[in-house]
């Protein structure tokens, strides 16, 4: 089978991932195999994926082919266009850094009773599945790849299955993944039904009535939203992501959610075609709610990985805000603005992929070095793990959407898109969109607060536990993995124009118009609409900041001024401060808990122990549970109990059923 050029590296990427899974089969025999062969193969796969993606983005070609797999009359259709390229590159980038990081991290499992075969094998399958999803061009292959992705990640979530929490998380995850997959399948079914065929080509040609289009869209939104972790179908995410091995959490949070975003974009922009602005409103609302709730719940967490997982909900929300704006604009005849919003969403997608992966890898490094996942037990790590600390800080600044890093650029673009609401005819939308943007601003500020808490509690101050005191910097490979991502955080923050011109093919393909004018004033200037409207020059901003910092510090640290005297902390002259007196994560978030109280279920009680000391318990939980999930569960249980009651055990009763059925049928037929 001869593959056109960009497909060659793409195929190589998939094959390398599968090969990594394959060699892992022997990992239980030779433990080092995982580190020495499987992970390097993943690196290869990642690099190939990046290469393929960039290749197709630069060349702008669309290549398609068929694989001799699948149903007899529907072989797997493979299509590789700009959108796929973008996401494939994204997958590749994160995979590469994760695989660089992996060998150092999986070392700890080599002397446990866990099956390394399972770890390596399913990691490879997971990556391969995700890569195949973005390459699929028919519903069947898409679903197969999609479910391979879900199933293998489930096995990774339950990798350390001794803890009941992990098992519960895994089950919940797989259940919701399955439900989502069925929704997606139904969505494709609707398209195929009117399009006559399960190939995407046929679906693109589908002529749907508005109602059916909306049905298909709703199904897709539910299905992909469930995977992406939109509120209120997000509950699996904060359960499942933290319990997987950290480099897997990075893959899941950074990449798998993006695959869901890909699916959503592919489905609604590409396959469904003419977008209705009503859908955009729905997506915008869901996105805003997810962003806000995500960050608020994140603020309440003190388990680092769980907190990061909730931030994924937030950032996915931001991405969907962008998508919603894009749909609204596209639906009301503003393709240019739609393109802007879409690009903003895509930009945030890759940004989130990078800094979330970075943060999860950092959390993994802490877990690896200090064996702590609970922030209340950390502290002062910056002194002991300077590199990890530095990279983690970069991640924090990026996710808090602060200049000059990448998170800021995408939020800036989203704001710019939202600011163009005045161009809309519909006054309600004109006033609705700014409110969503205000929510976005609130989200950003809360995220900043949250990461002040994260970094301040875990990396700054005094060590709160012995583990944290004896933490040591992690191995070179693990640092390299984080460093690569940190570098990209900066690059994407400083070089938005280059990136925009790279992905320009996507809006051109999906909406018919590009965003070339955004970069036409040279690499220095980012002008999304028009220079007079708004412009941003990341390189100059960076220079300005560096100049200001540099000059001030040089000027002030000249000569004898350089000296500083080290002394004990003053703390208003109270008794010598110790580690226990520090502000804890819970204390930090207490004001927020109080201000936004009604959005959580807060159970807080203080009990006095017999030794006179007091015990303070605090549980903050999702409201989504009792509102949405508990009722469904109750209903199914009741129904199954009802059915169980049929099985009385009395043979005469059974015969009675037979007789009854016979008589009823005879009556029907006569």
């Amino acid at each position, binding site marked *: 089978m001869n593959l056109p050029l960009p497909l060659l590296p793409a195929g190589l990427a998939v094959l390398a991932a599968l090969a990594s899974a394959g060699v892992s089969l022997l990992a239980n025999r030779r433990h080092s195999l995982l580190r020495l062969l499987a992970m390097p193969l993943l690196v290869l796969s990642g690099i190939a994926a990046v290469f393929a993606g960039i290749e197709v983005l630069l060349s702008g070609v669309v290549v398609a082919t068929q694989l001799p797999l699948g149903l007899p009359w529907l072989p797997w259709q493979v299509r590789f266009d700009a959108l796929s390229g973008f996401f494939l590159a994204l997958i590749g980038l994160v995979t590469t850094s994760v695989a660089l990081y992996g060998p150092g991290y999986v070392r700890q499992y080599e002397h446990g009773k866990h*099956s390394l075969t399972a770890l390596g094998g399913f990691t490879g399958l997971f990556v391969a599945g995700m890569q195949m999803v973005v390459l699929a061009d028919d519903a069947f292959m898409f679903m197969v790849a999609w*479910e391979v992705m879900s199933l293998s990640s489930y096995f990774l979530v339950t990798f350390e299955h001794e803890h009941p929490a992990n098992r519960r998380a895994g089950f919940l995850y797989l259940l919701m993944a399955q439900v989502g997959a069925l929704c997606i399948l*139904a969505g494709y079914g609707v398209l195929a*039904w009117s399009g006559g065929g399960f190939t995407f080509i046929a679906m693109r040609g589908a002529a749907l009535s508005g109602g059916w289009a909306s049905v298909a869209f709703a199904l897709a939104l539910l299905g992909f939203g469930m995977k992406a972790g939109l509120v209120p179908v997000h509950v699996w995410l904060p359960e499942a992501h933290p319990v997987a091995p950290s480099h897997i959490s990075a893959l899941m949070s950074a990449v798998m959610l993006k695959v869901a975003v890909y699916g959503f974009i592919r489905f609604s922009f590409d396959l469904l075609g003419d977008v209705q602005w009503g859908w955009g409103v729905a997506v915008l609302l869901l996105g805003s709610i997810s962003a806000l709730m995500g960050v608020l719940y994140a603020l309440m967490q003190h388990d680092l990985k769980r907190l990061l997982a909730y931030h994924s909900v937030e950032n996915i929300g931001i991405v969907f805000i962008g998508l919603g704006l894009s749909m609204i604009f596209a639906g009301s005849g503003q393709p240019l603005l739609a393109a802007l919003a879409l690009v903003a969403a895509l930009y945030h997608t890759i940004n989130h992929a990078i800094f979330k992966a970075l943060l999860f890898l950092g959390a993994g490094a802490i877990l690896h070095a200090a064996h702590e996942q609970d922030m209340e037990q950390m502290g002062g790590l910056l002194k002991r793990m300077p590199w990890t600390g530095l990279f983690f800080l970069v991640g924090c600044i990026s996710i808090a959407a602060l200049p000059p890093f990448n998170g800021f650029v995408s939020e800036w673009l989203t704001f710019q898109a939202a600011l163009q609401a005045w161009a809309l005819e519909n006054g309600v939308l004109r006033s609705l969109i700014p409110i969503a943007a205000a929510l976005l601003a609130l989200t950003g500020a809360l995220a900043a607060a949250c990461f002040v808490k994260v970094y301040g509690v875990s990396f700054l101050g005094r060590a709160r536990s012995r583990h944290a005191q004896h933490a040591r910097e992690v191995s070179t490979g693990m640092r390299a993995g984080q460093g690569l991502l940190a570098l990209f955080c900066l690059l994407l923050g400083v070089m938005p124009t280059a990136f925009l011109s790279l992905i320009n093919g996507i809006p051109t393909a999906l909406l018919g118009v590009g965003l070339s004018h955004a970069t036409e004033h040279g690499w220095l200037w980012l002008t999304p609409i028009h220079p007079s409207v708004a412009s941003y020059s990341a390189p100059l901003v960076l220079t300005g900041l560096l100049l200001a910092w540099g000059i001030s510090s040089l000027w002030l640290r000249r000569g004898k001024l350089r000296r500083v005297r080290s002394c004990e902390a003053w703390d208003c002259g109270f008794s010598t401060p110790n580690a226990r007196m520090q502000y804890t994560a819970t204390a930090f978030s207490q004001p927020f808990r109080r201000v936004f109280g009604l959005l959580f279920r807060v159970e807080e009680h203080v009990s006095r122990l017999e030794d006179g000391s007091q015990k303070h318990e605090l549980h903050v939980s999702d409201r989504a549970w009792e509102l949405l999930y508990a009722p469904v569960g109750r209903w199914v249980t009741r129904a*199954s109990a009802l059915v*169980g009651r049929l099985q009385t055990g009395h043979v005469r009763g059974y*015969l009675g059923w037979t007789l009854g059925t016979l008589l009823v*049928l005879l009556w029907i037929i006569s």
Partner: protein
Amino acid sequence: MGSPFSALLVTVFTPLAGVALLAVVRTLSVAGWLNLGLTVLEFMASLALASAVAYGGDLTAHSFHIDALNVYLVVLTTFIGMTTAIFSRPYMAQVCAEGRITRQRMQLYHAMFQGFQFTMLLALTTDNLGVLWVAVEGATLATVLLVSLYRTPESVEAAWKYFILCGVGIALALFGTVLVYFAAQQVLADPEQGLTWSVLHASAAQLDPTVLGIAFVFLLVGYGTKVGLVPMHFWLPDAHSEGPTPVSAVLSGLLLNVALYALLRLKMLADPALANGSSPAIAGHLMMAFGLVSFVVGSLSLQRRHNIKRMFSYSSIEHMGLMTFAFGMGGPLATFAGLLHMLVHSLTKSAIFVTVGHATHIAGTQTIEHIRGLIHTQPGVGWGLLLGVAAIAGFPPFGIFASEFLVIAATMASWPWLSVILLSGLAIAFAGLFGNVQPMVYGAAPENQAAVKANMLPVVVHLLLVLWLGLAIPALLANWLNQVTVLIAGEGVL
């Protein structure tokens, strides 16, 4: 095996000879190997038959009728019979060694295993509806003693219910057969041919619709009992849970299929006849209704079970319901999907029952609450169970996903709103299966659990086959199934 007919004879009558042989062989180890050898021989012969039919076309002689439909099931039957025999030889030997059953019951087991094979193959290959009935009834009689093999009160009770319910059902089916014969005599030149399927099928259109309608009702209730359609399904969980595991495997993997096959043949007669009656598509609609009800009841019954084998028998009900629904819907796509589902379900389900057999041996109980941490005790069994359940729950890349995908696609095309029921049913079934299985597989193992000598070869083979079918359906099989689809639905999918 020169001519196809001789291949047919070998296939069908080897087990009969086996019954006689195993009835006299006293030494158990020999019997076990002999049983295995016979099944291998049957499988070979069926392959020969299949190839002969594939190249030589249909074969109708001496009241045998072989076409694409049944030859495909014949191969499936002999194959699963063989793999089950591979599993059952050491397994039953161990059971006997543990003293749970006596030597002569072992003898009975081996003989009846072959007897069951014989009735299955006879039912599949015969051209005579009467003989078909006799064979299916014979299958009940052959297995009823196997179900009560352990002679525990529960097993006796289960066997009794199985016997009574299936006996009654089959009796009703016979009444239906009589009515068909009656209707046939109105039109056929030679009344003696009135039960010959091939003849009837040729002139099905002239059969009287009303009589055929009533006849089909009786046949549906009758054979439907054996398929395990709700509400005639009550025997199924009992029989599956109380019999020895190999029996559960063949019951779920083969018997249900054969009953469904009978139903299918009769639908092929009823449809053209009913076409010129008052309600043309009634047969299909009835099957759809029964299928859907069974599907929903089955998937709901999967929640929070206590007995592992009962749980998987409910999943059998669910899947048989899905197939019945597909066949009832008719149309090439649905029919193809149903046929494919028959295949993958049999393979997967028998593999699962084999694994479950090992699991129950490991834990020494069938109670789900007491089986824990299989992956730690015996990784092979644990992973086998986990992957098997993933397959049966319809996860790609396993084949069941492909067939369910097609069923849903067909439903979407013709009955879009029913697909809602299908999808939610699948989700509920999945929740039940995994909710019960995950705790058994994961977590820490209780100390009384010890690894056993398990031959996982059948499981591996079955699952690999299912995996293959999920990734790519080989052209040979595709064409084969397509022929069957043409035969049933009038037009193919390819």
